[in-house]
């Protein structure tokens, strides 16, 4: 009798458990999990989209094609320089802003709300505002003219375009990570700093000996999310260049290139191969990151 009841109970809790999970499993399964296998499959095929979708096995052809694809290398280079430039700066800026806000200052909530504004705004709108400001006839050039400098064609210069997007990106994502850091900083007990001060530790010493080690999880989160986010840069490049990646491929990112191959050239097999390689690179970077953080912890 008891045994039967506990068996029934277990069945019921199993059913309930999966019922609770069902919607999430369906969504994540169909649109995230399945696509991983699907795109691996696609990367070894040529996809014919006319009429019924059909696939032709082409072995490694899609991957071999990459080495001779100049635009793929440009996109990879652009994406890398984007990551390398944006992630450290946005992490440092976020930590700096959070540290200032964590000091007991008046109006700090107001400042926090203001700083967060670009994070709330869509990248489409931000990009348009930036084009409007960098424009040959825009605010930036007019400000330069009032101080006697000459205006410049910022948007048309391939050497400047990507840097403009980088700055915009730092400006819009740093506040999000600032909030993450702020939450971590507020959790550090004041008593730790007090005893450090009694021991004669200066501001900088307190920062490196107490703050930095204690906010390490937040830093890890910021760096990993930053890398994942910057590797996926698409919206700003697309809107900025109207989908072309110009001027002169200077804003072409890997995500934009994948999009172009898939939806402009309708070459879904090759686009998938590019995506698979990029995913491998991101995975490798994340694991490397984890390793670095772990080793530092031991040391």
């Amino acid at each position: 009798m008891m045994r039967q009841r506990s068996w029934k109970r277990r069945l019921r809790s199993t059913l309930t458990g999966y019922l609770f999970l069902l919607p999430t499993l369906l969504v994540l399964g169909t649109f995230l999990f399945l696509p991983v296998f699907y795109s691996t499959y696609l990367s070894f095929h040529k996809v014919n989209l006319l009429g019924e979708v059909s696939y032709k096995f082409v072995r490694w052809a899609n991957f071999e094609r990459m080495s001779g694809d100049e635009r793929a290398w440009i996109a990879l280079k652009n994406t890398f320089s984007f990551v390398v430039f944006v992630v450290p700066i946005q992490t440092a800026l976020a930590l700096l802003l959070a540290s200032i806000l964590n000091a007991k200052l008046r109006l700090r909530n107001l400042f926090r709300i203001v700083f967060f504004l670009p994070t709330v705004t869509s990248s489409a709108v931000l990009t348009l505002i930036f084009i409007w400001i960098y424009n040959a006839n825009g605010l930036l050039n007019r400000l330069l003219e009032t101080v006697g400098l000459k205006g410049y064609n910022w948007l048309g210069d391939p050497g400047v375009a990507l840097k403009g997007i980088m700055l915009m990106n730092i400006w819009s994502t740093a506040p999000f990570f600032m909030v993450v850091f702020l939450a971590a900083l507020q959790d550090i007990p004041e008593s730790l700093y007090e005893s450090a001060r009694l021991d004669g530790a200066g501001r900088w010493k307190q920062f490196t000996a107490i703050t930095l080690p204690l906010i390490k999880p937040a830093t890890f989160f910021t760096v990993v999310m930053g890398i994942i986010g910057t590797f996926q840069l698409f919206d700003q490049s697309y809107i900025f260049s109207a989908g072309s990646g110009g001027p002169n491929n200077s804003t072409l990112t890997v995500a934009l290139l994948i999009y172009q191959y898939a939806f402009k050239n309708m070459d879904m097999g090759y686009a998938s191969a590019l995506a698979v390689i990029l995913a491998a690179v991101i995975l490798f970077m994340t694991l490397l990151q984890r390793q670095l953080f772990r080793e530092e912890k031991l040391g």
Partner: protein
Amino acid sequence: MPGSMQRFAWSRAILYALLVLYAAVTLVPFLWALSSSFKPLEEIVSGKINFIPHQFTLQNYYDIFVKEPLFLRWLWNSSLIAVVCTAANILFNSMAGYALARIEFPGNRLMFFLILAVQMIPGQLTIVPAYLIMKNLELLNTYGALMLPMMANAVFVFLMRQFFLQFPRELEEAGEMDGMTRFGIFFRVALPLALPALAAQTIFSFMAAWNEFLKPLMFVSDKSMFTLTLGLNTFKGQYISFWNYIMAASMVFTLPALAIYAFFNRFFIKGITFTGIK
């Protein structure tokens, strides 16, 4: 002692200066965009740096709705998608997080592991397959394509699990004593107490759906199914030198997200704190 007081005051002044400086860096582009949206075109191209319009006008806001009859439709599409996706996220992520934290069943650990693993999948990898899946399901150019992929989020499932792990068991036991089912306990005991966590989710889910660009770009070609992000992008293509219109449209687009943020902001830091990121 007076020396250290003075130094204290100085460092405060520097901190305030930094805050004000960064606030300016943040606000100036927005104020410039806002002011442009209230200026007639002649004033915009005149080359003056005036943040307060000489000839204040609401004409731009009126014009965008007249010149682009679909603008209202895009606004509706975006709102519908954002609201439905937010509601779905709040419900589904919390249900899944609750099950993983509180319900014992075979496969619980495996499911948790899968949801952790899913977070590592980079977005680009899903671009092409997601399109083909939508095509096969005949969902292209429908709300289904725009909503379904954004109805649950692995990160928030994970965070909700962390939240429910810390949730006091006594409350649930009391519910059980009252003869509530699991569903009853979840909806009437656990969920109402998770409000700060849900506020953070609301902000982020709404923003994510409202601001999404790539998915509508892939899944929708019919102009009447555009979201505001796509609409804004085509609008920019058509009216490239009419910055008064583009900025007015941008402001219309920004307002709802700002309103959501302003309303849920008070729960916000708490919401981040709960996440267990730290």
